[in-house]
């Protein structure tokens, strides 16, 4: 920092008060300050989880420095990964999330395409309506949804409640509106001439969507995918309300119900489970970021 300041000070006359370079320097300092504050704020919990996951139960309950591991052990990891139950939770979570992401994309991409490109009566209202449904909190929704599932079972005899696949019907109520909204935005940014060119080239609506819109709006599609996956993976309220049997639970609820016995908290394994549970979204995010190439539309039109 000091060397930067010296170097900057050594070039040319002293900048005047309020000059652009001075403003920019201060803006940069403030950005870094807040960046550091936020980084500490958000990274403290995972770091604490990592530290705790490496401790034995005895060390966790001992009155030592909680921010230091005196006898590091992988015992929690071995135990958790060796338990069939944890693997089941993990499998359920993965199944639910992957299928929900697929369902969400299958619904919201064509919906967004229709709402952004096919002007039909009420399309603008419908587009706003889609977003408004996202604003209804899930805490309000889960009771009527529960009632619906019960009624469904009464009418058809198909048992949905307390099966992991009930979540496949529930999560899209959270993911579809938001993803549709994101995709409407991305599709709207694609120049109108591009679909007109495709139309003249002989493409139908479906071909235009599949061959032009989806590839061009890939960054948006990836953003929507990441969102849908994160929401499905981290969802807590719905699985807590709709699933109870241990073999039907997903990770967030599974960890809580199986590792908290009465008032005994198995902190080491809870932290390990949560940490391992946080890994897939991180990996997916890192993987998709490579494909998240901003400015993919460059060159489509003038510029």
């Amino acid at each position, binding site marked *: 920092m000091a060397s930067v300041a010296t170097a900057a000070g050594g070039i040319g006359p002293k900048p005047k008060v309020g000059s652009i370079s001075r403003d920019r320097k201060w803006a940069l300092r403030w950005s870094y300050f807040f960046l550091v504050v936020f980084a500490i704020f958000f990274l403290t919990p995972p770091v604490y989880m990592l530290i705790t996951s490496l401790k034995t139960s005895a060390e966790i309950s001992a009155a030592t420095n909680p921010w230091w591991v005196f006898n590091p052990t992988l015992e929690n990891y071995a135990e958790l990964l060796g338990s069939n139950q944890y693997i089941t939770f993990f499998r359920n979570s993965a199944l639910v999330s992957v299928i929900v992401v697929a369902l969400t994309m299958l619904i919201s991409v064509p919906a967004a395409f229709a709402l952004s490109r096919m002007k039909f009566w009420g399309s603008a209202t419908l587009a706003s309506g889609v977003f408004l449904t996202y604003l209804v909190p899930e805490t309000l929704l889960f009771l009527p949804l529960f009632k619906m599932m019960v009624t469904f079972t009464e009418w058809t005899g198909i048992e949905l409640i307390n099966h992991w696949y009930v979540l496949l019907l529930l999560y899209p109520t959270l993911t579809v509106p938001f993803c549709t909204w994101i995709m409407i935005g991305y599709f709207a940014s694609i*120049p109108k*001439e*591009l679909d*007109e*060119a*495709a*139309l*003249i*080239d*002989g*493409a*139908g609506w479906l*071909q235009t969507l599949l*061959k*032009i819109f989806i*590839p*061009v709006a*890939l960054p948006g599609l990836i953003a929507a995918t990441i969102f849908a996956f994160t929401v499905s993976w981290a969802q807590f309220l719905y699985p807590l309300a709709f699933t109870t049997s241990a073999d039907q639970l997903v990770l967030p609820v599974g960890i809580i119900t199986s590792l908290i016995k009465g008032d005994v908290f198995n902190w080491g394994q809870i932290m390990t489970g949560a940490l391992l549970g946080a890994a897939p979204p991180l990996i997916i995010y890192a993987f998709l970021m490579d494909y998240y190439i901003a400015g*993919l*539309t*460059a*060159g*489509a*039109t*003038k510029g």
Partner: protein
Amino acid sequence: MANVELHKVVKTYDNTPAVRGVDLHIDDKEFIVLVGPSGCGKSTTLRMIAGLEEITDGEIMIGGDVVNDVPPKDRDIAMVFQNYALYPHMTVFENMSFGLRLKRFPKAEIKRRVDEAARILDITDLLERKPKQLSGGQRQRVAMGRAIVRDPKVFLFDEPLSNLDAKLRVQMRTEIKKVHQKVRTTTVYVTHDQVEAMTLADRVVVMNNGLIEQVGEPNDLYHAPATKFVAGFIGSPAMNFVPCRLEKAGGGGLSVRLTDKIAFTVPAERTRRYEPFVGRGRLTFGLRPEHVTDARGALEKDQQKLDVTLTVTEPMGMETLVYFAIDGTELCGRVSPNAGARDGGPMTLAAHLGDMHLIDEDTGKVV
């Protein structure tokens, strides 16, 4: 290859008329340019031919078939857009072959056509590039290539050169003309640039306010404009207009009076044509800048002297544009660079009355 016909074509957007009854016959292999100011309905007309806009009323025929309700893909047309509209995720080859691939052409045929079009447009080296790796001129060539490979009945160009810089625009203009000479496909070209219109077109269609003002060959439009709008729109700098009166002169002739002091004798061969307008109000005298020159030596037939004080001179190299005012109306003339024109200086100019136009302001028509 086909002719295109428009019969009383009307387009209205929410009760606002954009095109108000256009009749046009475009011959097979003809290069037609629609030109006019913004909002004159030229692009809308083109988009209706393409099928991108529905027709409110009237009839459009391509190759003898009414296409009012035919979707764009079945009209066998190709369009080049102002902003190129290339598919950004596809290479040049894929962009050009997209339409053919959709129609399931054999691979060998696709390759043959793309290679042929690339050769015509000199973009063979670019086939594997993505649009963002191309310059504006190259993108425009690719957009044209995409149209050529389809071998359509009609090419439609929607202001294709407007996004290019001045030099490239001139170059691409020639390029488009060459391509048309090679492929001879019926072409409808929209532009607001009258130079493009004049240089490219077999026939120019001047539009204004949703209506066709005049259709004709470039030289006809220039030398025999039908309306004041066409007279003023075609040509740069624009034609000079001065309110005038028509008076009887001695010997059965006529004179056109611009001010109390300035009056020109009307050429004898026009006397009959102009006679009915003698004494009528609301007439305008029109003369192009190139017909106001420096008076060198003896005046030729139908040339008359005009002494003026110049306000501004604009040396262009091969000529100098001189501006002066007659009764508050600014006029422009074109003089030789050696004529000694200078800002604020006096000058004797020659008005070539043989090229004058007389406009009846009540109808807007040239007499």
